[in-house]
């Protein structure tokens, strides 16, 4: 028992975070049980549930493992996710035959932006994507030697950089908050809180949607969105005293805003999919769709969480 305790404390920064992980595992086990039973009752309605739950396990293993491995590994994993999301985006969005060099530069922007996180330079991170990557991509596009489509492609590439790299990268910045500023769970606890609150909202939406209105896709009904908002905000406000330095009223402000931003992200990516005429941004995550589909809500919520937590409670930023 003592060795088990020592092992746990070697892996988890605090008993609270170990408990948090156990909670997620319990939910996933519940999901696995549901995925084993529900398709037998109603095969059509729960057809994608087993794949969806399997993918959740993988996502939890990747994100949870990266959080425990510290900010450097987490930043690398997040950079890889940003890269995959950018690639899904430029593969669907309109680009020109001549623009392969500019697209390659946009991939490089992932390395440059996360490089600023590695260099621990918040100021550099803030200006790289909106100014320097924008200029670099626009100049490369202008050198393509083809006048038509320039503005469209410049706008398209910048959209991808802002959502997939700039927004998402704020999570990596949160991981670099010094442990002294935070409770025993440290920055891993803080990011765990944000991840849990956003993803719980998506799960609540799916559950309500599938049980109440199986014909409509998740994220398209008012009921689903309400469930998303209530569960997401509730999870954040309830767990903020444990994992964040926020006071209760501050946690209420951040927690209520969080699902609003996440739903904005889902809405924007849905509009994008509609224009491009696809159901999902790729088939990477069975039962969910593409990386960008899964990331959208989190990406849009990340700057809000970062700015508000920094404003209320962090010396570092």
């Amino acid at each position, binding site marked *: 028992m003592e060795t088990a305790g020592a092992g746990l404390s070697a892996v988890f920064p605090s008993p609270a975070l170990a408990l948090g992980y156990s909670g997620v595992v319990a939910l996933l086990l519940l999901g696995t049980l549901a995925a084993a039973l529900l398709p037998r009752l109603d095969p059509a309605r729960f057809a994608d549930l087993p794949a969806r739950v399997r993918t959740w396990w993988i996502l939890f293993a990747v994100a949870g493992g990266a959080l425990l491995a510290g900010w450097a590994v987490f930043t690398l994993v997040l950079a*890889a996710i940003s890269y*995959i999301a950018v*690639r*899904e985006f*430029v*593969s*669907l*969005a*309109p*680009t*020109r*035959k001549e623009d*392969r*060099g500019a*697209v*390659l530069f946009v*991939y490089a922007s992932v390395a440059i932006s996360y490089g600023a996180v590695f260099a621990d330079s918040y100021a550099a991170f803030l200006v790289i994507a909106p100014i320097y990557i924008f200029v670099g991509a626009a100049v490369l596009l202008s050198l393509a030697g083809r006048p038509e*489509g320039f503005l469209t492609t410049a706008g398209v590439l910048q959209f991808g950089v802002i959502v997939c790299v700039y927004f998402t990268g704020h999570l990596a910045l949160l991981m670099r908050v010094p442990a002294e500023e935070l409770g025993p769970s440290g920055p891993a606890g803080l990011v765990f809180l944000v991840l849990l609150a956003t993803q719980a909202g998506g799960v609540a939406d799916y559950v309500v949607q599938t049980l109440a209105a199986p014909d409509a896709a998740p994220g398209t009904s008012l009921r689903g969105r309400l469930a998303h908002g209530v569960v997401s905000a509730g999870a954040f406000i309830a767990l903020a005293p444990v994992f964040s330095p926020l006071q209760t009223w501050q946690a209420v402000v951040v927690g209520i805003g969080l699902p609003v931003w996440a739903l904005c992200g889902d809405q924007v990516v849905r509009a994008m999919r509609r224009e*491009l*005429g*696809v159901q999902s941004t*790729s*088939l*990477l995550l069975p039962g969910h769709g593409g990386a960008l589909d899964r990331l959208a809500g989190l990406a849009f919520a990340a700057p809000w969480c970062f700015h508000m937590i920094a404003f209320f409670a962090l010396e570092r930023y």
Partner: protein
Amino acid sequence: MAGFALMLRRLLLVLILRPFAWLVIGVDVRGRRNLPASGPAIVAANHNSHIDTLLLICLFPSRLLRQVRPVAAADHFFKTPLSSWFARHVLGALPVERANARRDMLAGCEAALKRGEILLIFPEGTRGEAEELGDFKTGIARLAERAPDAAITPVYLQGAGRVLPRGSRLFTPFNCAVIVGEPFTWCGDRKAFMTRLRAAIEALKSDAPPLRWL
């Protein structure tokens, strides 16, 4: 030597090629259950890029790798001893001599099908223009005629022509789509066979996500 080379190929597939294809390039496969689980079989796909062979090889489980043979032009891939070794032992490629009309060009392929292998064939014979379907050569029909028990699986590949088009050295990742159609067998007539193959691959094209590549 052969056992070692095969092990090397399986390790290469599992540790390098497949992670590279799935994570760096990004591949969406539709209709995977239509793939042949054993030979003799022919997988026929459109051809835009060297990436195409990689995408097709990555579709198969590593235990089938011994049987999976990309058919490659001898004059291009077996030119130097090094590229020849790489093509034969790493890719498991089967050389076809396009230029030599006096020899029986298809004998090697036919023998491979008799051994129960799975041939990967690009009926266009060359990579052509990026993301455009060129004319099909009829060698595949003559081969199917000589090995009528081999199932033909049509595959449409989209996006590889953006990743690495012919004539470009700039490798640029884009998501690719691999759409596997239902297999069919030799129908008794070369012309009808070619029409059917082309129609099958063109029909798969409509299942691919829209390509906004202006």
